[in-house]
């Protein structure tokens, strides 16, 4: 059977790092995948070395919009690890609140887009509607819908005002019943079961070999979560569960994210209600020479920052490792062997930058265009409706 190559990308709205996927297909089956990145390379590591430790947080924030807290969180911890110092209790709680708010909106966003790919636009609209409430909460607490600018080495920049808390709690509570309803609707939908179970499976061994992170690894049964393994922030003072499932298929990745939503809501509410008093900032004056490492469990997995200081007010070296960097190669294990119709959702399941599908084009070996990007999305949706018909739902 002739092999053809499908190029996905590089431009798609919504992704952190525009990537370019090349799927080699044989008929309907994907036999190989090649990922290339670099469409989003802005030299952040170099830029961060031009700025002072304090200013660098803003550069770091703009690595990724959805994880705009995760990177500063890891970075500030790395800087604090150089000295080393512990930030004040109140600052820890505020950091935790912002980080969990981000996790909630990121997971909701993922659900919305996954629904979009599968042809469930209702899910898309509902999830993004819920997400608006969380973004409102973030605007109330931090002053912006995204890019919160709350973190600084040694504490946080802004305090959470006590008068804002009741409104924030009210907004968080208002999404709970809808999330509940959606959870039930998603978990007992036979079509989704048929569509997602058993595809894109990442086994436990593969997850360990590829050093997969975050929900991608937890869905494969690897209990790996920095918040539990090496507690930081306020996470060791709270009561919450790590969600781990066994199968590693797309369904499990979705379930992990769905259940994590509840944990995050729980953590966020608890922190808001039990915010300790005191200082919010240590007012660090100088950073001694040395090196430090910080890690934070971002919605997509662990972010890892290594900062070297040479005693000046600028980082001498700053290495950033985003979770997707480790999760993307797992596609090599999950995508080959699946059908093209499933490829979109498997790519999406690691929560990379999945709007790839908007600009996909399938080419045969001689470069002739066979399918457009919409076509691939259509294939994915057709499969859903086919299953729906088979199950007699429509």
């Amino acid at each position, binding site marked *: 059977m002739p092999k053809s190559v499908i190029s996905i990308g590089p431009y798609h709205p919504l992704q952190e790092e525009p990537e370019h996927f090349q799927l080699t297909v044989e008929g309907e089956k994907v036999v190989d995948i090649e990922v290339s990145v*670099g469409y989003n390379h802005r030299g952040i590591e170099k830029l961060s070395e031009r700025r002072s430790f304090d200013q660098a947080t803003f550069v770091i924030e703009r690595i990724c919009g959805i994880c705009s807290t995760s990177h500063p969180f890891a970075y500030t911890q790395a800087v604090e690890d150089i000295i080393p110092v512990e930030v004040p209790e109140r600052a820890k709680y505020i950091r935790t609140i912002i980080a969990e708010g981000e996790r909630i909106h990121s997971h909701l966003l993922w659900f919305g887009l996954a629904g979009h790919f599968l042809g469930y636009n209702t899910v898309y609209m509902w999830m993004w509607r819920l997400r608006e409430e969380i973004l409102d909460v973030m605007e109330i607490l931090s002053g912006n819908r995204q890019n919160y600018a709350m973190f600084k080495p040694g504490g946080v920049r802004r305090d959470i005002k006590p008068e804002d808390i009741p409104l924030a709690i009210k907004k968080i509570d208002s999404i709970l019943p809808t999330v509940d309803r959606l959870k039930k609707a998603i978990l007992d939908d036979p079509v989704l079961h048929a569509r997602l179970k058993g595809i894109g499976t990442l086994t436990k061994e593969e997850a360990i070999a590829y050093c997969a992170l975050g929900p991608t690894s937890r869905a494969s049964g690897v209990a790996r979560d920095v918040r539990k393994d*090496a507690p930081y922030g306020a996470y060791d003072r709270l009561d919450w569960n790590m969600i781990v499932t066994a199968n590693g298929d797309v369904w499990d990745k979705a379930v992990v994210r769905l259940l994590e939503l509840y944990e995050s809501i729980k953590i966020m509410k608890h922190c808001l209600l039990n915010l300790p008093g005191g200082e919010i900032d240590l007012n660090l004056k100088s950073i001694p020479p040395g*090196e430090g490492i910080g890690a934070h469990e971002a919605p997509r997995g662990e972010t890892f920052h*290594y900062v070297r200081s040479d005693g000046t007010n600028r980082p001498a*070296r700053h*290495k950033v490792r985003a979770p997707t*960097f480790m999760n993307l*190669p797992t596609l090599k294990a999950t995508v080959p062997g699946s059908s093209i119709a499933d490829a979109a959702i498997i790519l999406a399941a690691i929560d990379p930058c999945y709007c790839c599908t908007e600009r996909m084009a399938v080419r045969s070996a001689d470069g002739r265009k066979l399918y457009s990007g919409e076509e691939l999305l259509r294939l994915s949706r057709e499969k859903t409706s086919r299953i729906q018909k088979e199950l007699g739902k429509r």
Partner: protein
Amino acid sequence: MTREEVLSEIQSRFGDVILDFFDKSAKRVYIELQPRALVPVARHLFAELGARFHIASGMDSRTHLEVLYHFSVEALNLLVSLRVKLDKNDPRVDSLASTIKAAAWIEREMHELLGIQFSGNQDLRRLLLSEEWPAGVYPLRRDYREWDPGAVRDRGV
């Protein structure tokens, strides 16, 4: 295995290739190695201790090119960083990609941004930079200078 056992085992097994052993804190250990010993030590950590490979970070430290390989032993909440110092004129180190799959990409990235050669890594194609980027110009090196005469470094109006 406790933290002390793990560390003393590394020290006794690889004592002759360890140049510096810096026990920074309860959670962080930095080990400086001779470059030739990188692969066996990394394999020991990864395969036998079950440590997770985080990332490698290359750095130009004026006198050397340093590469740090960060591993974490999750059960002990311990981060072990292996440091190798490479000669600036011929930065060359053995590739970890065959031992640890996850190291393949970061080696590509370091090769591209810092110009470090990884012997044994077959796939050192460009990962991030564009095709027009001149060969031999490494942006993360300290002596990097703007090479593009068309670049605009003010607001551009």
